[in-house]
């Protein structure tokens, strides 16, 4: 609802969510309103570009770290396998290894 038409004239408003309620701010009409609107548009464009860049960056780092995590998980599994084949067991993740009752 950025532009509101009243009696054939366009008025520019912006609404924000502030402290649990919607606050609507009036910016004017005509040339002033147009320039404010285009400034807001540019700002929104820049923000969405930044969000896209951030998401790409996060996906890139996450993908690289996923392979690292995979290697660490293999380590865990192999060490667990050694412990279990040596006759140890543990009741829950992270708890102490105890000798299994034979």
């Amino acid at each position: 609802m950025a532009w509101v038409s009243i009696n054939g004239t366009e008025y520019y408003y912006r609404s924000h969510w502030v402290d649990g309620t919607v606050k609507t701010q009036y910016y004017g009409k005509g040339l002033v309103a147009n320039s404010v609107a285009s400034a807001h548009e540019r700002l929104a464009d820049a923000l969405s570009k930044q969000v896209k860049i951030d998401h790409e960056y996060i996906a890139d780092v996450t993908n690289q770290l996923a392979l690292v995590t995979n290697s660490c998980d293999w380590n865990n599994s192999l060490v667990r396998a050694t412990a279990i084949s040596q006759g140890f067991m543990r009741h829950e993740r992270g708890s102490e290894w105890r000798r299994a009752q034979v």
Partner: protein
Amino acid sequence: MSSDASVATLAQLSDTLPDRDHFDNVLAQANDGVPGAVESLREFLEEHPQIWQQVGDLNRHTVMTLVRMIAGENVLTQQSITKAVAQLVDDLADNHEPVMAEKLLISRVVCSWLECQLAITVSANLGTESLVRSRFHLKLRESSQRRFESSVLALQQFRRREVDLARLKCRVIRDAHKAQIDYETVLASEYPWIC
């Protein structure tokens, strides 16, 4: 971060490993005491003797990838981190030649330590970056810290377990000596998994 080549090598190495889900399934069953599962686990390890070597290679490449992710193209930083890693491995080995499982645990500590360093490095320009990135970096720091703590705990538990095993062996020697039976025979008959 230009570590595409090392990431590709890591992916290739991961592909050569046995089926992860099957391995984890056998592990879970063995830990739960399902009859025959421990034997299946031993068979699995015997059928895949190269697995230790493969995971060891995977670890080396993981360390290299993390070093490149931290240092970028800066060769000097890469070398200093590599030196720090070698020093850390030496310190963790505690003046003895670690067995394969212990080597893997040490690698895990090193990897998670490097992950912590990476998280600190990428979140160095906190304040100038966007909120989305800051939140991601904060999560990265917290999770890498958690993984580091759990890897140190796992190494500590492994050493405690080794002490436990050594104590058990001493007891078997004492019992065998008392009963005047051959130690190897008692070990093979009562504790075959230690042999």
